[in-house]
């Protein structure tokens, strides 16, 4: 069945007569190359994150005693699994070719909800990880597992640094969640109105 209504034809003629201007193919090629490079960079970034965690472990573990080694292992497992999960979620993006527009709208809203969930998870996980790192720091100092580590001012500053960083990440995530929720509400209003 064709949409052969006279008035619709008139609208269609107006619509198709609008002036158009397409981008040049060289512009598009440039954009495409940039897009590919960004994709490659993000893969390198993700791998580097994991590499930093593993290198730090490899560097510190031989210098630590039993307590330090076990605690380091706990932190390594926790951070690696969380980082890998986040990388997986970030890579699982929505494909505009796969869905009809109505289900794409739903997916877009679900995606926005998933982003809020990731932010919330990062917010709540920050404090336990901060505590784990602080315990490791105190433990290796008190037990004298790391040569040269002493209870002094620099120890206090490092500890304060860890606590400060965790609070900063916690606060930043809280702010992001608030922002994303407002965006989600606006998006929902735009897409769900009939």
């Amino acid at each position, binding site marked *: 069945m064709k949409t052969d209504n006279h008035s*619709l034809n008139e609208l269609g003629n107006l619509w198709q007569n609008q002036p158009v201007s397409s981008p040049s193919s060289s512009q598009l090629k440039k954009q495409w190359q940039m897009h590919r490079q960004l994709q490659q960079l993000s893969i390198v970034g993700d791998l580097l994150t994991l590499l930093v965690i593993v290198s730090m472990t490899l560097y510190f573990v031989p210098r630590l005693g039993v307590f330090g080694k076990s605690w380091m292992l706990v932190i390594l497992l926790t951070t690696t699994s969380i980082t890998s999960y986040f990388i997986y979620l970030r890579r699982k993006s929505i494909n505009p070719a796969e869905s009809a527009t109505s289900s794409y709208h739903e997916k*877009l809203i679900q995606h926005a909800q998933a982003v809020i969930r990731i932010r919330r998870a990062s917010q709540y996980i920050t404090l336990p990880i901060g505590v784990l790192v602080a315990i490791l720091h105190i433990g290796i100092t008190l037990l004298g597992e790391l040569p040269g580590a002493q209870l002094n001012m620099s120890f206090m500053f490092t500890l304060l640094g860890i606590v400060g960083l965790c609070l900063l990440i916690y606060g930043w995530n809280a702010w992001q969640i608030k922002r994303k929720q407002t*965006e989600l509400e606006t998006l929902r209003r735009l897409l769900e109105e009939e």
Partner: protein
Amino acid sequence: MIDNFEQLIDQYGALIYRVSSSYEANEHLRQELTQEMLLAIWQSLKHFRAHSSLKTYILRIAHNKAVSHIAYQVKRKSASDEHLINLAHSTTLEEHSDQQQQINRLLHAIRALPVQPRQVITLAMEGLSYKDIGQVCGLDINHVGVIIKRTREQLAEVLKNENR
């Protein structure tokens, strides 16, 4: 089949630009959106399996990409869209021919529609059958018919009122 960017632009550049004009009033953002759509289409062409016509497949990607663009604009909270739409509308109306004025009014009215009727009516104006529109939008044919009838009347009314 499309083998390079030149072919893609030659065959579908104008169509994609028209889709982006139903979402963006600002010329700069419209160009940006057109490029985003063409890139998304280029990226997805290798997955095309001829379950529908290539035009239908391309329009689906273009509209979905446009909706992502809306989502991104929500994030960017860029220079107020309303302001840009009004600005684009008022400056062009006085300067162009009768037909151009009619086109601008039509575009303005289309951009004011909710997303789903906007997608359905623009697909209809591109000459897609109810079945193809249903495929692009994931709607049954009857629902497509209802939306087209309602939206067409709405647009005709807007154009009629503004002509007075």
